[in-house]
């Protein structure tokens, strides 16, 4: 047992750190450090900088042009990016659909789609949830009918994150009503510029259009865009979930936000208030404990032994902590958290800030963070999964 990183791991981290310091645009990290609005261009610029270095697919194996890092190296990379104030990489392309294409896609699909994902040129979205299928995802109804050399897709997806920017979308679609709901689902790649695709943004409680409804009205999709076999999509989706792994705890971001919380608490005069300070202390403990749990999972993964049964806990705990720090930041601002001046969340806004500039986004972020215990399998669904592993 050893809590220290090896000399090689430390050298690796130093290399990442210095590269990020030189290559992460400061206007972007300024926005991230201050929770200001990020544009599509911000995301794309950063993705393409990473892509040019070959690091947008940082979790990819060498065979597909990735760096082939182990679990600990991937973690260190993610940590350096988060602490430096890099935007979260939009995961749908490099983290989600790419591993599925690598594992189950045809060589043609791999050649066609992976380069655009690796370079950050193509923005992918994820078409999973439907109005009638949230936690019970397998009940999805969006239908793909096989007609000759293509499918005709009809139905509706919802909660599709940032699909307003999307070039392509990977969808779970129903190709059969036979047997169990899970066995009639296929994994389909759809060009969002196809006729019949309509995207309508949904404004969330923070006033931002972060998610969308996506309609498919008789959309013609070439049969060659089916990943793997027809009716095996559920298996691929589960593989995808397993691939999200530890970063779902987002502990690196939590560390960055803990620093921000302390800055805000100081500026707002509550850092020396013992009752407030103790709550920060508790959050510190919670973050250390989460980080230790993440490191245990990484260590088990790196050693190649059986993975720990704690992975399912990471999403629950990580999301609770995200909510907690955003809550404490809002509380720190007190009455100055109440104004809702949307323009004040824009970098470089020249208007009069109410209280202080750092107060402007706090309540919005707090409201926005309620999503974390809902998306990606609600925390109640996660508890079902944990209970299943514990109780059988």
């Amino acid at each position, binding site marked *: *047992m050893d809590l*220290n990183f090896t000399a090689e791991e430390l050298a690796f981290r130093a290399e990442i750190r210095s590269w990020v310091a030189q290559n992460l645009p400061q206007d972007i990290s300024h926005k991230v450090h201050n929770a200001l609005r990020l544009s599509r261009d911000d995301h794309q610029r950063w993705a393409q900088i990473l892509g040019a270095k070959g690091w947008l697919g940082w979790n990819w194996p060498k065979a597909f042009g990735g760096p082939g890092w182990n679990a600990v190296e991937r973690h260190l990379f993610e940590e350096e990016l988060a602490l430096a104030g890099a935007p979260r990489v939009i995961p749908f392309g490099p983290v989600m659909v790419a591993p599925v294409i690598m594992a189950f896609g045809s060589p043609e699909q791999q050649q066609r789609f992976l380069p655009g994902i690796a370079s950050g040129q193509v923005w992918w979205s994820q078409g999973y949830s439907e109005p009638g299928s949230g936690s019970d995802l397998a009940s999805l109804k969006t239908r793909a009918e096989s007609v000759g050399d293509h499918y005709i897709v009809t139905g509706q997806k919802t909660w599709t994150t940032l699909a307003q920017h999307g070039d392509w979308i990977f969808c779970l679609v129903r190709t059969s009503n036979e047997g169990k709901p899970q066995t009639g689902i296929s994994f389909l790649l759809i060009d969002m510029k196809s006729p019949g695709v309509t995207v309508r943004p949904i404004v969330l409680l923070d006033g931002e259009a972060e998610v969308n409804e996506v309609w498919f009205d008789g959309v013609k999709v070439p049969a060659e865009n089916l990943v793997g076999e027809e009716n095996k999509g559920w298996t691929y989706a589960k593989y995808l979930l397993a691939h999200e792994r530890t970063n779902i705890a987002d502990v690196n971001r939590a560390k960055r936000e803990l620093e921000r919380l302390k800055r805000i608490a100081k500026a707002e005069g509550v850092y020396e208030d*013992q009752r407030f300070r103790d709550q*920060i202390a508790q959050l510190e*403990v919670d973050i*250390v404990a989460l980080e230790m749990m993440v*490191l245990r999972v990484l260590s088990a993964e790196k050693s190649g032994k059986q993975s720990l049964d704690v992975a399912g806990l990471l999403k629950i705990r990580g999301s609770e902590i995200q909510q907690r720090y955003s809550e404490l930041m809002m509380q720190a601002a007190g009455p100055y958290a109440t104004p809702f001046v949307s323009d004040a969340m824009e970098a470089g806004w020249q208007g009069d800030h109410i209280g202080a500039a750092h107060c402007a986004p706090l309540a919005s972020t707090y409201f926005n963070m309620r999503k974390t215990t809902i998306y990606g399998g609600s925390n109640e669904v996660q508890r079902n999964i944990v*209970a299943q592993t514990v*109780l*059988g």
Partner: protein
Amino acid sequence: MDFEFTQDQLSLREAVARWVGKAHGFDRRHGLAKAGGAAREVYGELAELGLTALAVPEAQGGMGFGPVEAMVVMEELGRGLVSAPFAAGALVAPALLAQGETSVGQTWLPRIADGSALVVLAHQERAARYELSRCAAEAVADGQGWQISGHKSVVPAGDEADAFIVPAVLDGSIALFMAARDAKGLQVQAYPTQDGAQAAELRFEKAPAALITREGLKSLEWAQDIAIAALAAEAVGVMDRLVATTIDYLNTRKQFGVALSTFQALRHRVADVKMQLELGRSMSYYATLKLSEPTAQRRRALSQAKIQINQSARFVGQQCVQLHGGIGVTDEYSASHDFKRLTMIEMAWGDTPHHLGQVSQRMQDSAGVFA
């Protein structure tokens, strides 16, 4: 970055577990508790296994093992709900004596290693709560030696220890002294504790004592951190055991014609219990691995660990009793004993408000978490 145990550590774990399986079933624990919590019988068996030599330096007849080995043993003792003052006698006392500036350690350490002597720290005072720097006991020079006077509370192992390590104020600062059980001027009043063990009140009235170190406070802080790491590991073992019992029960016990484990309200509770157990285990590792850090980092880390362990111990203890229903609150069933031991661990060496205060005090502007 590595959380794997070595083959030797796994063998050590197995040896302790084997002894627990053979010699320390719940009936024995129950019997010992009912009989008043005698400490020496089981402690002697641990000595026969060689465990009391674990943390004693090799030069004094010990094995000189490190914190990870101590953690492994404590986890297994917890998993067996073993009633013996092992942390106090075999981990904390040797750590203090090995650091002493005088020859007292040379005298006692070999006897601690072979188990012939049980030495425990007697630091608790009525007005101190968890503040190690508050000490009313006093020492005065007496010819070649010293005499100590004062009242120490809730001292582990009751009146079965052979000697006590006693903090007392000497020339304005805390020093540590060794006082034998049979010292003139020492009165011992033993009593049972909630978890089926024993403790004692010690009243020193000009009792003769030997100086161990004048760096008393620093040593006490070190003792506290060793004890927290040990208790954390023990708590993990007890929680593991309690959770296993609870899962068995939920899968066996039927109500409304089905196993309790089919009810989602209970399943979600089990998921929450599992969460607290694993957070606790993670912070137990953290506590042990941070013992070798420089003082400031070490103390902050151990306080952080104790907070998590306290919270995990309470949650897992309370919820597992609740998940059992009526049988959970009976004396005849092991769950209540696990719960009581977890509760005593929470109350020892700093409760949650105390350590939150410590973490608050030591807070850094940076994230201040592990990196």
